[in-house]
């Protein structure tokens, strides 16, 4: 009798928590879509400026989301561009060259770095900017500093995904090239690296997603509410997630609030697309691994 009771209790608890989670998620996303989708239009993005003029940078967009979207794009390109080469190289070192104590020492450091809260990374970026300011007067918190700090944030993830992708290559594949007389570097360059590319690519896409969504880091390192398209690496800039945060706390009228909903929907769509791309690449990897062998 007691067993029966426990069984029913656990089953209903599991169903309850699963359904609660799903419904909460659907309420959150549904609320955003219902409020946000009707606001989506070209004028939301470009304001009164014509899209062609804005895209060719002939005229400033003053009321639309275009500067924030451009800022986010530039930021993502820069930070992922900075982090990817270092992350891949370190990942390759971890997977192929380091052994024993050295390896666990390195991975401990990366684990700690991955666990450091993003606001602390932002604070580090900010301190870096003010320290550099003593030597180079032009450096304030700016696009470049934000990109650097974001690169620090995603570096451990890149390293780990690269390492994991390389290490999960089966040993038959791993030993073929050396058996034919290839050196270690040749083996990495012609066999192991190309083979783990889909896994690495999905890691890079997830890193792009993290850069696009992160707000805490950029808040401390140079994002502002109104700056237009950044003119150089050392200027302030706008970004979508910060715009959303800013609107939620200081919107002045209903129209501004509407643009906030619009911005949130746009960010959600961007992140969902990136996520699906990463997912697709990962599955591609699985298929290739399964069918080619």
């Amino acid at each position, binding site marked *: 009798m007691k067993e029966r009771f426990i*069984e029913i209790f*656990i089953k209903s*608890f*599991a*169903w*309850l*928590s*699963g359904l609660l*989670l*799903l419904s*909460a*998620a659907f*309420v*959150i996303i549904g*609320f*955003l879509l219902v409020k946000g989708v009707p606001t989506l239009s070209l004028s939301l993005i470009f304001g009164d400026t014509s899209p062609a003029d804005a895209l060719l940078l002939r005229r400033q967009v003053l009321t639309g989301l275009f500067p924030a979207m451009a800022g986010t794009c530039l930021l993502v390109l820069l930070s992922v561009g900075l982090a990817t080469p*270092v992350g*891949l*190289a*370190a990942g390759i*070192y971890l997977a*192929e*060259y380091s052994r024993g104590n050295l390896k666990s*020492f*390195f991975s*401990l450091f*990366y*684990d*700690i*770095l991955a*666990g*450091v*809260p*993003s*606001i*602390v990374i*932002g*604070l*580090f970026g*900010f*301190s870096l900017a003010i320290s550099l300011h003593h030597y180079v007067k032009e450096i304030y918190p700016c696009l470049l500093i934000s990109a650097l700090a974001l690169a620090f944030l995603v*570096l*451990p993830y890149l*390293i780990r995904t690269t390492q994991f992708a390389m290490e999960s290559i089966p040993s038959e594949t791993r030993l073929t090239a050396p058996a034919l007389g290839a*050196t270690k*570097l040749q083996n990495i360059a012609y066999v192991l690296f190309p083979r783990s590319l889909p896994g690495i690519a999905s890691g890079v896409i997830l890193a792009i*997603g993290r850069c696009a*969504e992160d707000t*805490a880091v950029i*808040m*401390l390192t140079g994002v502002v509410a109104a700056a237009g398209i950044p003119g150089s690496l050392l200027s302030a800039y706008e970004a979508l997630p910060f715009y*959303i*945060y800013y609107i*939620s*706390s200081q919107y002045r009228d209903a129209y501004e609030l509407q643009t906030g909903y619009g911005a*949130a929907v746009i*960010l*959600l769509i961007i992140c*969902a697309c990136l996520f699906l791309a990463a*997912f697709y690449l990962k599955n591609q990897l699985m298929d290739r691994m399964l069918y080619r062998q």
Partner: protein
Amino acid sequence: MKRECFAETGFLGAAVLSASLTALILIFMLFLGFPLFRGGCFFTLLTTPWNPDKGLFGIYPMLAGTLSIVFLSLCWAFPLSLGASALISVIAPTGFAKFCKKTVQMLTGIPTVIYGFVGVFLLVPFIREMFASGSGMSILSASLMLSMVISPTMILIFTDTFESIPASYSAAADALGASPVQKLLYVILPYSRQGIFAGLILSVGRAMGDTLIALMLAGNAVAVPGSILDSARTLTAHIALVIAADFDSIEFKTIFAAGLVLYVFTTSLILLVRIIGGMGMKNR
């Protein structure tokens, strides 16, 4: 052969560079917060209240705010995640379980700022109406939304652990005629104790490191919270709010103390997970 050497040095350089960042962040925090440590007043800082008018710059209220929000959000998120992962791995029919897992994976990709935004315009008014108290920006609102942020990752860790039990264990339970729930209770859960604990600790780290939810939903009042409907400020939100202050002020220096506390906390959590993982290896 020269190229081999060159490449290896390059890879090593990247690895050392990335690892040194971890140390560099700590050094920066220590160096810039240094004026606070002289005379051993760092620990008094952690236990005194915040009252700039009287010259008191303790971060105790923020520490209390952080701990209460983290604790409360885990109180919601942990049972929820455990139940949901039991549903996904054991109880639900395969099709629905797959759908749930896909949805949970998608949820991990939603930006935190969006959770915060929806929280401000949906959850906060709701809490305000429900409890008819103040602005609705409270520990309760922040912890509810934060539990939504940390649950998906926790569920993924739990389901991974549940699904990693050896097939022979699972088959043995089936052969003895165990129902799915009995299998969960007597085989899967005891076997995944360490995985569950590790997932819980990692979630504590995530909840503690989150800035935006608390910043947007907890109201940021600098006082030790007395109830869950009180407004509170977390260490992370404190850093975000004070950054605009005058650079030479003591007020500004306290954010490095807050950063240091966060760094030390999260690092010890990671070390704890490692130690548990090491114990798990030995036991098997």
